[in-house]
C-alpha cells in the first residue's frame, strides 16, 4: 500500500447519483483490500459494541494472585501488572478508541465542512480569514496540536476527543473549500442562481451533496489518524483516565514490563495496528470506488 492516511483524496467527479452508486458499491465489493479493511472495521466495531454482553471479567477487577500471568485458559491474553484480564481491557478499550476516532472526526466534519463551504462559496474576506486560520492550525503538527489542546483542556477522554477533533478540523476545511471552489463554477450551480434559489438552499442542495464523496473518504482515513492520536494521548496520560481501559494507557504501563510480560504490550499494539489498517484500507477502497476515472 503506497497511500497513507495523510494523502488528500483526488478530486472526485460530482456526477455520482443514485444509479452510479450501485456501480460504486459493486466496485467496492470487488476491491479486495477494501473488503479486508471493511471486515476489520466491522469486527472491531462489533467487539466494542458487544463488550457488555461478552462473558469476560470486569476490566477493572484486580487479582493479586494472578499478576502478569502469561496467556492461559483462564486469561486468554494474559493479565497485567495488577492482575487485570488483558482481553477484557482490550475489548472495553476498543470502545474508547473507536468512540474517540468517530466522535473526534465527527467534530472535525461538523465544524470543518460548513466552514469550508462558506469560505469556498463566498470567497472574499470570509475566505481569507478562514483560510489563514486553517493554515495557521495546519502549520502545527497534528499530534503536537492535539497534545497541547488536550493538556490545556485537562486530561479526560472527552477532552481528548475535542482536542483531536479541533486538530483535524483544518484538513476538512481545506478539502471542502477546494471542492466547493471547483463545484461552484459548475453550470448547474449558476442555473440554481438563475432560477432564483436562495443561497442557503444552493449550499445545501447543490454544493453539499456534490462535495460529500471526497469528504467521506477523508473522514474514513482521518478516523485512523484519530485513533492513533487517542492512543498517543492516553499513552501520555491525557486521554482515558485509569482505571478505565484504553489501548494507549495499556501500552504505557506495558512498556515497563516489556521483558517480563510482552503480551501486555502485544495485544493493544496489534489492536491499534489492525484497526488503523482497517480504516486506511477502507478509506482507500472508498476512494477508488468513488473515483469515476477508474470505472
Amino acid at each position, binding site marked *: 500500500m503506497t497511500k497513507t492516511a495523510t494523502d488528500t483524496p483526488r478530486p472526485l467527479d460530482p456526477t455520482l447519483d443514485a444509479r452510479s452508486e450501485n456501480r460504486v458499491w459493486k466496485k467496492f465489493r470487488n476491491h479486495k483490500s477494501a473488503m479486508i479493511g471493511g471486515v476489520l472495521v466491522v469486527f472491531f466495531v462489533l467487539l466494542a459494541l458487544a463488550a457488555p454482553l461478552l462473558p469476560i471479567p470486569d476490566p477493572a477487577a484486580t487479582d493479586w494472585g494472578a499478576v502478569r500471568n502469561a496467556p492461559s485458559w483462564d486469561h486468554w491474553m494474559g493479565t497485567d501488572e495488577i492482575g487485570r484480564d488483558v482481553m477484557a481491557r482490550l475489548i472495553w478499550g476498543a470502545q474508547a478508541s473507536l468512540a474517540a476516532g468517530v466522535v473526534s472526526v465527527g467534530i472535525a466534519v461538523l465544524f470543518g465542512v460548513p466552514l469550508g463551504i462558506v469560505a469556498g462559496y463566498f470567497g472574499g474576506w470570509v475566505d481569507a480569514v478562514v483560510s489563514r486560520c486553517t493554515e495557521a492550525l495546519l502549520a502545527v503538527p497534528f499530534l503536537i496540536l492535539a497534545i497541547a489542546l488536550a493538556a490545556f483542556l485537562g486530561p479526560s477522554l472527552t477532552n481528548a476527543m475535542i482536542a483531536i477533533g479541533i486538530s483535524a478540523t483544518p484538513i476538512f476545511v481545506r478539502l471542502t473549500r477546494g471542492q466547493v471552489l471547483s463545484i461552484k463554477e459548475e453550470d448547474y450551480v449558476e442555473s440554481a442562481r438563475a432560477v432564483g434559489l436562495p443561497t442557503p438552499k444552493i449550499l445545501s442542495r447543490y454544493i453539499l451533496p*456534490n462535495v460529500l464523496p471526497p469528504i467521506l473518504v477523508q473522514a474514513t482515513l482521518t478516523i485512523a489518524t484519530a485513533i492513533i492520536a487517542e492512543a498517543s494521548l492516553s499513552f501520555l496520560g491525557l486521554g482515558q483516565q485509569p482505571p478505565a481501559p484504553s489501548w494507549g494507557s495499556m501500552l504505557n504501563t506495558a512498556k515497563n514490563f516489556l521483558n517480563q510480560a510482552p503480551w501486555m504490550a502485544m495485544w493493544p499494539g496489534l489492536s491499534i495496528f489492525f484497526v488503523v489498517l482497517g480504516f486506511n484500507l477502507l478509506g482507500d477502497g472508498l476512494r477508488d470506488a468513488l473515483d469515476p476515472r477508474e470505472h
Partner: protein
Amino acid sequence: MSQDVILEAIDVAKHFGTSGVWGAKGHSVRAVDGVSLSVRRGETFAIVGESGCGKSTLARLLMRLMTPTSGDVLFDGRQVSAIQGEELKTLRRDMQFIFQDPFSSLNPRMTVERLVGEPLEIHAPELSVPDRRSRVAELLRQVGLRSEHADRYPHEFSGGQRQRIGIARAIACAPKLIIGDEPVSALDVSVQAQVINLLGDLSRDLGLTLVIIAHDLGVIRHMSDRVAVMYLGRIVEVGDTETVFTDPKHPYTQALLAAIPSMDGKAVDHGATVHGEMPSPSDPPPGCRFHTRCPHAQTLCRTKVPDLSTSRDVSHQVACHFAETLQQRFQRPKPRQRSDATEARFALYRAATEGGTVTHNAKQNQS
C-alpha cells in the same frame, strides 16, 4: 413589431481584474466594453460573434448573474444591477436562462421532477405537491418529453433531451424573457433543429422574448428577428436579421458571412476575408478594435473609436467609420433556389422530426 423595449443595456462594461499582489492593480480583461442594446418585447434577438468576444459574459450581465463594472441593465424599465431581495426574486421569475452545455447545467443529483419543479417551488410556493407534480408533467409534455421521465436522473437522457429539461426548467414559472447562451451549439446537428423549433414554438405560444447568443449564423438567420454582431467586447453592427444578412455594412460582419461555406462548394471571396487572431481583450487595440484585422483599415480607424449611435439609420446601426463607402464592395450572391424536389424532402423531414403526420402530397410533388 411593437417598439416596446423589455430589456435594455446602457453602456454596459465588465472588466475582469486579475488583481496583483497586495491589492496592486493588475491587468484587467475587458470582456464586455461599453455595450448598449435594446430588446423589444416579443422579438427574438440574437447576439453573434466569435469565441471569446464576450457574448456569454454579456448574457450573464443581462441576467444579473454578474454585476457590470459600469453601465446599467434595465428590465421592464427597472434597473437590474442594483436590485435585491423581493425585486431580485421577481426578476429571477421573469427572466430565465438556458445554458450551453446540457451535460453540466443540470444538477446530477436531482431527478427531473425536482429540477423542473424547483422554479415552481421558489416562485409558486402556494402550489401543493400534487399540483406541482402535475404542472411538471405538463411542462415535460410541452417540451416534448414524457411525464414518466420525471423520476429519472439527468444522466439517463441524451443531450437533446437534457436541453429540453433545461428548457422546461426555464419556462416553468412563465418568464417574460429567456436568454439562451448558445442553447444548441453543444448538440448534434440533427437535434439542433428540433431544439430550435421547440424554442421558436414556445416563444410564439407563450409570447416570450428570446435573446439567443450564438456563433452559428445559420441558426441565427433561421430563428431571430434582429441580430447584434459582437467583436472584442463591443457591438459592431445591429439590425433586422434579414437586413444584416443581405446587406452587411461592417467589414467584420461581411467577413463572418463570407466565411459561411456555400452549398455548392465554391469558395466565396469578396475581399472581405479576415486574417489573424482576435487581439487579447486585456489589451484591446486603440481606435476601432477591428482595425488590426480589417482589410479596409485606414489611419482614422487606428485612432478614433467608431460609435454605433452615429449611424443615421436607427434600424440598422453600424460602428464603422467607412460603412457607407464599403457597402458597395460586398456582394453576397443570393442563395440558390431549392428545387421543388428538395423542398419536398425538407418538408418531409420537418414533418417527421416534429412528429406530425407525413402527408403524401410532398411525395407526389417529388415524383
